[in-house]
């Protein structure tokens, strides 16, 4: 087994060698511009792009023409949210989203709020999912867009997307779904689930960084967007800029592999994830899964280790790459806003670790990680005044904490 072990596949994934092989010719001999209409270099590039468009569309049940290539999911989110807001502002200026969305969505909505749009920020249940009745109640005649993610990037929790899509369509509101973590890992179908716009990223599904896509529905309803990038009118005028042909080929190949292998891969990843969970729960007391296990990505385990601070845990397992919901790692010193929104309590939010398994994760690695985490959690609990107090029977919730010394 090679160290360090990579178990942070929600952050990014290793490019699948098959994806890289598909891309390489488009850096070398097939370097043409897909917009060059009058020579063979351009035709070859265009052909490759159109093949990718089909592969991406097939994975999500869309038509190839409904796929717009972008530089990644952040751009896709921006184009979807700002593009709809601008295009439909005369119909209404109300947008509905949720507190646990990715920053790319939250910050787009915040910007629109400053520009005079009204935004409803839905809370989540302790499970991590939104309450559909609250969503129903939030929709008004002014609502033009609901933007909710498919799967959360920290907890892997899946929103009830089919129900959200049904509600959106019944009420005549567009539904944008940031499906970066879900596409390629769970079956996604834009028709069955009534999704009007859907963001995809290549590097989360074993493709390259710097490329993504936005699905834009063309029928029932035909969604229109105001372009956020002006120029040569590429991608049906919605996203100008010379196409990143090698990247797009990589995204297409990555989608193709996911489509062929998802069923098998899901079983394998779920098995490994459940093994990791079982091992940690068997060797440590007071470990808590954040959010529901029932509706969750097969490769995710978000867990809080009571009485241990997340960053110190990461420091101890420095040969394992995972991520912490504790945010001593960021300059804000605020714990994960996702876990806080779920009502985890700040103390448990500070104690959380996100394990993201992936295509290249092995059973040996899972066992190694479980062992290392156990060892370091035990060591840090011996150092933890909270663990000591809990064992002495002190109720930590009622204790008078002094944020500063006397």
């Amino acid at each position, binding site marked *: 087994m090679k160290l360090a072990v990579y178990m942070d596949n929600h952050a990014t994934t290793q490019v699948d060698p098959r994806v890289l092989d598909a891309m390489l010719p488009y850096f070398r001999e097939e370097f043409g511009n897909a917009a060059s209409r009058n020579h063979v270099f351009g035709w070859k590039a265009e052909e490759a792009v159109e093949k990718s468009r089909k592969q991406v569309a097939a994975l999500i049940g869309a038509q190839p023409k409904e796929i717009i290539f972008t530089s990644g999911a952040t751009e896709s989110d921006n184009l979807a949210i700002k593009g709809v807001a601008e295009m439909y502002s005369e119909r209404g200026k109300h947008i509905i989203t949720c507190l646990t969305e990715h920053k790319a969505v939250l910050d787009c909505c915040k910007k629109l709020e400053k520009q005079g749009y009204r935004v409803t920020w839905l809370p989540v249940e302790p499970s991590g999912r939104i309450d559909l009745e609250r969503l129903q109640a939030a929709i008004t005649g002014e609502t033009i867009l609901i933007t909710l993610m498919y799967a959360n990037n920290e907890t892997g929790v899946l929103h009830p997307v089919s129900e959200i899509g049904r509600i959106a369509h019944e009420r005549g509101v567009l539904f944008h779904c940031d499906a970066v973590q879900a596409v390629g890992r769970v079956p996604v179908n834009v028709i069955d689930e009534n999704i009007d716009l859907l963001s995809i990223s290549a590097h989360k599904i074993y493709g390259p960084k710097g490329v993504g896509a936005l699905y834009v529905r063309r029928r029932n309803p035909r969604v229109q967007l105001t372009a956020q990038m002006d120029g040569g009118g590429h991608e049906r005028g919605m996203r100008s800029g010379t196409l990143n042909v090698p990247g797009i080929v990589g995204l297409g190949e990555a989608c193709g592999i996911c489509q062929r292998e998802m069923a098998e891969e899901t079983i394998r990843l779920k098995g490994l994830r459940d093994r990791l969970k079982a091992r940690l729960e068997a060797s440590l007391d007071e470990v808590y899964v954040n959010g529901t296990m029932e509706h969750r990505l097969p490769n995710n385990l978000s867990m809080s280790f009571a*009485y*241990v*601070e997340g*960053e*110190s845990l990461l*420091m*101890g397992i420095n040969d394992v790459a995972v991520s912490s919901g*504790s945010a*001593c*790692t960021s*300059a804000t*010193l605020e*714990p994960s806003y996702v876990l806080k929104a779920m009502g985890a*309590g*700040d*103390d448990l939010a*500070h104690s959380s670790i996100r394990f993201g398994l992936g295509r290249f994760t092995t059973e040996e690695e899972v066992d190694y990680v479980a062992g290392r985490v156990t060892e370091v959690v035990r060591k840090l609990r*011996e*150092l*933890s*005044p*909270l*663990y*000591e107090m809990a064992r002495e029977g002190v109720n*930590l919730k009622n204790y008078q*904490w*002094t*944020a*500063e*010394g*006397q």
Partner: protein
Amino acid sequence: MAYSDKVLDHYNNPRNAGSLDRNDPNVGTGMVGAPECGDVMKLQLKVNPESGVIEEARFKTFGCGSAIASSSLATEWLKGRTIEQALAIKNTDIVSELSLPPVKIHCSVLAEDAIRAAINDYKRKTAPGAEGR
């Protein structure tokens, strides 16, 4: 984020981790921070009643590596000092010894607070008329 070698050393080999008997009249206990802030430090010191010198110090910390290192270092520095000398330890001394980056300065502040809280507790216990408390 990269940690300094000294922070890593204290994290990997914490000095004086553990607890002293908080009911011992010569032991002062300070507990500062809060779980929801992501940092709690418990610092204890035991004073020799004859000499007035701190002869033992212990810590337990819930917090990031820099918080653990700051409190571990504090216990090292406390041993052998009188109460007055202990009060002279400043958070800036900890920052420079451990090369803490700006985002971790609060860890050193907490360690200084913990020292003061422990000393205050000791003084309360040993003040005239404090018998039996």
